[in-house]
């Protein structure tokens, strides 16, 4: 047993929390970018593209994130590609997030009335012009609240990457708890830090919901 002061524990956890924040941001933005590409393919007129994306989404939504991380981290080296925990974590989270965001956003695009497609078609706009100027601006409005809501989920999901040895908040909690034999205190602090990260977002999502749907 090693003696840590409370301040030392908190400091170590907060330092580790930086990685959680960074990982969340990367997975959210990279996942968002990939998700946007998937979305455009998912609502396109090409049957092949739609089918490909559907398979992608079903695979990543239908299997546990934990297994996806295992497959990237332990599976790729078997193919001769060595991945660091950092790369594996980023890749795994990006796949997972992109699949979910694409599916959330598809729902938002499909909520836009068919008349909007018809009106923009009859004005001679092509598919990308319709998406860019007519459909996505309206879909984005509906998408903001569920997207921020999913962001909260994405922060909590980063805890899973501790299992492949990536030292973020959850992993640091385990290490400190093992060293100090004070699991209740340490994990309590870990939970509080997660809460402090997530609560503002939850709150923000709720505000957005109100302001976006309350008025126009």
């Amino acid at each position, binding site marked *: 047993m090693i003696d840590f002061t409370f301040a030392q524990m908190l400091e170590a956890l907060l330092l580790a929390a930086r990685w959680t924040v960074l990982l969340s941001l990367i997975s959210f933005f990279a996942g968002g970018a990939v998700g946007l590409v998937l979305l455009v393919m998912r609502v396109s007129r090409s049957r092949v593209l739609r089918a490909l994306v559907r398979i992608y989404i079903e695979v990543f939504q239908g299997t546990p994130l934990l297994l996806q991380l295992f497959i990237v981290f332990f599976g790729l080296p078997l193919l001769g590609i060595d991945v660091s925990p950092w790369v594996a974590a980023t890749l795994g989270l990006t796949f997972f997030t992109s699949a979910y965001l694409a599916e959330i956003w598809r729902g938002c695009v499909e909520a836009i009335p068919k*008349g*909007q497609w018809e*009106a923009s078609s*009859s004005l*001679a706009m092509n598919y990308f012009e319709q998406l860019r100027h007519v459909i996505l601006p309206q879909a984005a409005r509906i998408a903001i609240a569920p997207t921020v809501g999913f962001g909260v989920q994405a922060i909590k999901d980063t805890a899973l990457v501790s299992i492949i040895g990536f030292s973020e908040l959850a992993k640091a909690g385990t290490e400190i708890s093992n060293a100090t034999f004070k699991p209740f205190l340490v994990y309590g602090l870990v939970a509080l830090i997660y809460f402090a990260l997530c609560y503002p977002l939850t709150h923000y999502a709720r505000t957005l919901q109100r302001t976006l749907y309350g008025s*126009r």
Partner: protein
Amino acid sequence: MALVETVGVEKQFGATPVLKGVDFSIERGQVVSIIGRSGSGKSTFLRTLNGLESIDAGSIQIDGARIDARHGDLRALRLKVGMVFQQYNLFPHLTAGENVALAQIVVKKTPRHEAHAVAAQMLERVGLGDKFGAYPDQLSGGQQQRVAIARALAMKPSVLLCDEITSALDPELVGEVLSVVESLAREHMTLVMVTHEMRFARAVSDKVVFMHQGRVWESGPPDEIFDRPSTVELRRFVQ
């Protein structure tokens, strides 16, 4: 040569034939009303004219743009054809002026200030010169429909299609939309309208087309169609 000409246009929804060979033509500057019972194929036919519905056989030629069952440049066709819908279908995230300006900017690459000037002019033409900055949900149904007409006109189409454009309106708002259509007719805009407003169709049309069971059943000048129908189906319909 006719401005709009269709030859043997056929269309099926699944196994159900909706259009069974529609031959139709109109000259530049004509106003044509298509009447008929619901299910007669009149709206579907109108929608084939700008490619919103594909066709299974036949061909459509509008002011030099041509499509048939297999191919056709939809963009070229749609640049010739404007369309106004029953449900207005304005873009709710844009103001009235931006609604009218958007396609000019995006499709025709008109500079923004020019497009906005045209938009202001078109809104003026439909009597909404003061509504440039209003969002669709701040406008009445009649006003929204007039913005929709302005939006279609701004693309300078050769022909304007109107698909039951007063059917979704409260009765007291129908007049303002019809009077805009009437003014377009007076200015010799080529118009094809599907309508239930028989009195209006009779007053403004050069030609009335009665569709029945996916075919042009009877067509001719309004007086002939409404006063001297030659088929029993039309006689029943106009009574």
